[in-house]
């Protein structure tokens, strides 16, 4: 269970403070929408630990995580773009998610190959991100997020700018994760994405 208690945040030089307070149960998907600047990315950045709140707490399974650095939180993120390191091949990009020094054992390597194959990217391990389509790149980013096996998945407009076919493939992958009990927050301005994935839909 994810709990945000009286969480406050303001960018330097801005008078307006954001205030977040909600609870999200395991295996649920919460969708956020609203105009740009309404605080969707800010909220996701706070939960992931990229931004430091002024006050309040973030609890996961009853334990405060807001003092942990980003790399220790039970969180994986997928952004709209710049998810992949452009000069490293697909396999390395995913592998760095399993071990930050790329020290992978055989089961790890097998898991990467297997997931690539399962998502229609079999044999793509040695391709560079620049050779992939937008949908394929996002699938690689989602594969990495999935293989990190963190219980909380934060999706910041991951389907924006993709064609309907690519979106559907991503929907399928994410729904499978949801069925496995992964908790998700999806920031998206597309109603179809929110309908397909989310249990509840908030306007910020």
């Amino acid at each position, binding site marked *: 269970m994810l709990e945000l208690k009286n969480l406050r945040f303001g960018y330097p030089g801005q008078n307006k403070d954001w205030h977040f307070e909600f609870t999200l149960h395991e295996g649920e998907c919460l969708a956020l929408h609203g105009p740009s600047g309404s605080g969707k990315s800010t909220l996701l950045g706070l939960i992931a630990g990229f*931004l430091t709140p002024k006050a309040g707490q973030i609890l996961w399974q009853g334990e405060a995580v807001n003092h942990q650095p980003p790399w220790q939180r039970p969180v994986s993120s997928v952004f709209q773009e710049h998810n992949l*390191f452009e000069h490293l091949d697909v396999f390395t990009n995913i592998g760095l998610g399993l071990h930050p020094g790329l020290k992978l054992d055989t089961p790890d390597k097998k898991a990467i190959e297997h997931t690539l194959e399962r998502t229609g990217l079999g044999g793509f391990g040695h391709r560079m991100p620049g050779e992939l389509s937008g949908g394929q790149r996002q699938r690689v980013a989602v594969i990495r997020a999935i293989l990190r096996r963190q219980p909380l998945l934060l999706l910041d407009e991951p389907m924006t700018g993709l064609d309907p076919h690519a979106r559907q493939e991503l929907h399928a992958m994410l729904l499978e994760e949801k069925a496995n009990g992964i908790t998700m927050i999806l920031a998206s301005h597309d109603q179809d994405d929110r309908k397909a994935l989310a249990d509840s839909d908030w306007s910020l």
Partner: protein
Amino acid sequence: MNTSLPRAPFSHPGWQLWPGLLLGGALVLLVALGFGSLLLTAGKLDPASVLNNRYLRGVVQFTVWQALLSVILSLTLALPVARALARHRQFPGRSLLLRLMELSLVLPTIVAVSGIISVYGRQGWLTGLLEQLVPGHSWNLYGLSGILLAHVFFNAPLAARILLQAMESVPQPRLRMASQLGLRGWWLWKAVEWPAVKPVLPGLTALVFTLCFTSFAIIMTLGGGPGTTTLEVAIYQALRFEFDFNQAALLAIIQLLICGSLWWLVFRQGLDTSLLPRRRFSFPVPLPGWPGQVIANSLLIAVFAAFLIFPLLAIGFRGLPALLPTDGAPALYQQLLPATGRSLLIALPAGVGAVLVALLTLAASNRAKHNLLAAIPSLTGYLPLIVPPLVLGTGLFILIRPELGNAAQGWTLVALINGLMAVPFVLQVLRGPMTAMDKNTLKQADQLGILGWYRWRWLYWPHMRRPVALGLAYGIALSLGDFGVIALFGSPGQPTLPVLLYQQLGSYRVAEAAGTGLWLLLLLVLIFASLSGVTRRSHQSLTQSSTTAMPDPEHA
């Protein structure tokens, strides 16, 4: 219908094209003349005898060797400093340190050298400390060690600034991804930092190499003798002391060949090095590190800051007593004030000229459609990087053979060459804001008939006011600090400030030299402060009027 509108002055499209084109053409012609005279003069020499000349070979070898070492040392220092600064984005004094690092672009070489001598010279602060710690040490500033030290002082901050800018331009999501994955050390470098740094590295290396290769004032003051002569100094000696024009021309061509081929290699890769920082706000992303990394980084930044600050402090401390009148006005001012006048006489026209050339060049290259025509204006921006000032000066010197007593003739040339040398830097400042005008605004202006002078006055000038002032300050500062071209054309009896400083250093009048150095430094601060002050005030009134006086079209 449009004919009933009052026509704006200078609204014919030709006004945007031809002034810049003619001016650019004239400058290219000037460079061609200088270059042509070099070729003609050097053509009289027998190439075989030149290649076997041991003195020449020694000069070329030493020039390349010291430049190479300077590049390696500067980048070795700059890279970890840039990494540390990229990682720690909020600590007290950070922005001050960044300003200090940008200072090396405009700090006159000869002033910095006088500061370096005050710290590391025979009676320097640190030398005294070293004497106590290690008695009988063999440290000697004069020679290769001093040259390298001064080159690192100038180029490490410049390189670190450019590298830092490259690292700060990493997209925020990528940085966040690296943070979430917990990348550190080698993999952080490989995945995030190296790809950011890689594109600027060739240009940066070429820039630092060129700056060290063509460095003049540092070699003149810190070089220890014939063993540490570089091409530029050899050219100067050949022209001013040996009157061996053939030799000078040949040396200039060798220098041109080496610098030119280096830049050709770099440009062929098609890169864009922006030397002046774009400031932007980005929220710092926490990144994992090794235990002790914070301490190591803090130490590194502190040492680096001290390395930059000490020479400047030394100028301040040693120069102030020389400038402050204790019993009547110090005799120093009798030399200082006329030298200031002469310096400004050269620097002000050079600065204004550089800004005008840059503006007209930009207008012309925006307007020119024909490829060949468009090349002329952009060429003026790069010429000075490829043809170093002293090479151009040598060519023109040989062509005109100025009567050394004729000050006016010499100074006109000095102002002209200095202005030309400042153009690339001014262009860097002005290009962004000039081309940033969005298409819709321009379409709107076309429809309303805001053309020519009116377009400049009401659309460009409000945005360009600050960049123009900054460009002007850079142009004036660069000419004010010039020591190379003036050494070639000036007469020792009528020194500008840098020449006066050089003379004082040469005759070991250390206190007076510090006074002159401080004076020149204060003059630069005054120029930057007054120009940025003027624009800041008008900028404020502009934003005020735009928020209060703008009528809301919905309710009009």
